[in-house]
């Protein structure tokens, strides 16, 4: 019931995933924002892979949630920009909405592509792929450690929330913000201490900077089968959008 043991969880080489993602993002960014149809067509590519790899809707929704703050920031800075620039010509609302839509489509496509191409996201495997593509080990190491810390922070947050909740704490009043502030401070401190102990334990088991992965990098025909549609389809859409003026 525990599934297969020897097969890598993911038959694709992580480099193929990274190349697909990079290629897709480059093509989307290189598409002139003249019409909406190429962007909608692009969405079919990640949609296909999301369906094919059975990415869970929850994971997808979580990733898309990141877009909200991004777009809000853009709207905010845009507004500020116009308030400060009195002398510039009248911006048309239509123009602004179109710009925002393009940005939304581009970043939405990037998020979709991450969900579609990064598989179920084994960060160590991904880092291995990045190293395989020539990214220095020190950078991938930072990435992996940051991810570990992030997860640890979540775990500690859960523990702390339970501990506070078990003694009847529920943030309801304004006065509770003080308690919330203390809890946040305590969370950061605890996570740091925990992270240090975890790091100790890792060193104790021979950790020397790079996370070991079970499977060496190796190209296979799966990668070709994956990369062909992942690269050719967006390139074709891009070419079409340049041709159709």
């Amino acid at each position, binding site marked *: *019931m*525990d599934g297969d043991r020897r097969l890598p969880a993911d038959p694709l080489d992580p480099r193929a995933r990274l190349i697909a993602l990079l290629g897709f993002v480059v093509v989307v960014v290189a598409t002139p924002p003249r019409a909406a149809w190429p962007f909608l067509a692009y969405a079919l590519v990640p949609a296909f892979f999301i369906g094919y790899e059975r990415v869970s809707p929850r994971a997808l929704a979580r990733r898309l949630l990141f877009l909200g703050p991004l777009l809000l920031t853009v709207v905010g800075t845009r507004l500020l920009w116009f308030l400060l620039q009195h002398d510039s010509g009248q911006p048309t609302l239509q123009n602004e909405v179109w710009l925002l839509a393009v940005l939304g489509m581009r970043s939405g496509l990037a998020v979709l592509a991450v969900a579609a191409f990064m598989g179920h996201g084994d960060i160590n495997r991904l880092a291995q792929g990045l190293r395989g593509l020539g990214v220095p080990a020190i950078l991938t190491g930072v990435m992996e450690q940051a991810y570990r810390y992030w997860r640890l922070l979540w*775990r500690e947050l859960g523990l702390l929330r339970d501990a506070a909740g078990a003694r009847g704490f529920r943030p309801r009043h304004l006065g509770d913000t003080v308690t919330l502030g203390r809890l946040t401070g305590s969370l950061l401190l605890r996570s740091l201490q925990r992270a240090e*102990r975890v790091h100790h334990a890792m060193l*104790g*088991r*021979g950790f020397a900077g790079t996370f070991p992965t*079970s499977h060496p990098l190796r190209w296979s025909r799966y990668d070709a089968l994956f990369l062909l549609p992942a690269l050719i389809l967006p390139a074709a859409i891009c070419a079409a959008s340049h041709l159709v003026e």
Partner: protein
Amino acid sequence: MTRAPAVPAVDISHLSFRYPDGTPALDDICLTIQPGESVALLGPNGAGKTTLALHLNGLLRGQGRVAVLGLQTVPANLGALRQRVGLVFQDPDDQLFMNTLGDDVAFGPRNMGLEPEEVERRVAESLELLGLDRLRNRPPHRLSYGQKRRATLAGVLAMKPDLLVLDEPSGNLDPVGRRRLAELLAQLDCTLLVVTHDLPYALQTCRRAVILNGGRAVADGPTTRILADRHLLEANGLEWPFGFTPPAPPG
């Protein structure tokens, strides 16, 4: 005296250590452990037991000399040392961090640079030894406490250490878990250092006991003799648990 004495598994002389915030934790410790010995490191909370354990593979370095398995704990030796000293931490949540139990157990062997087949063999072996083979694909945070404890031990045993250091291994284990762990430890053929304040457990797992108090090693001898000395124990913040029958003192 016909045989040359073997290299001690642990050879500590005049070790003192202070934490960066100034807390003194170890004070002039001298301790020698021979290969194959099983030693209980006893002492109340805050005695410095964990601090001493962290010195054994160079995670902390104080003043004085620490040699483990013939290697001084200097930076050049740390790589080799950490492959041969297995340290099981007090809190399993400090130790388990990979996405699945199987990956966590494989972490140490992979760091040792073993071939994938050998890693796989060792992972399967350790998981089986600890009765965890069916949980291999579980994320560690979805294990019960007792399973987590066994998982940390599996991760260390997969490295086949020559010296095994367990920090409070019996804490929070149920009676069956305690007994199983003791039986398992009795089977291992490495040098064993068990850090604990659980006196019956020390008696069950170790022939020799060292008492640490206030960062000093205050007593050292056969576990039966140390545990029979109620005054010594009480003077050092330890006491017989309710209903405990002290072992007959030797001699």
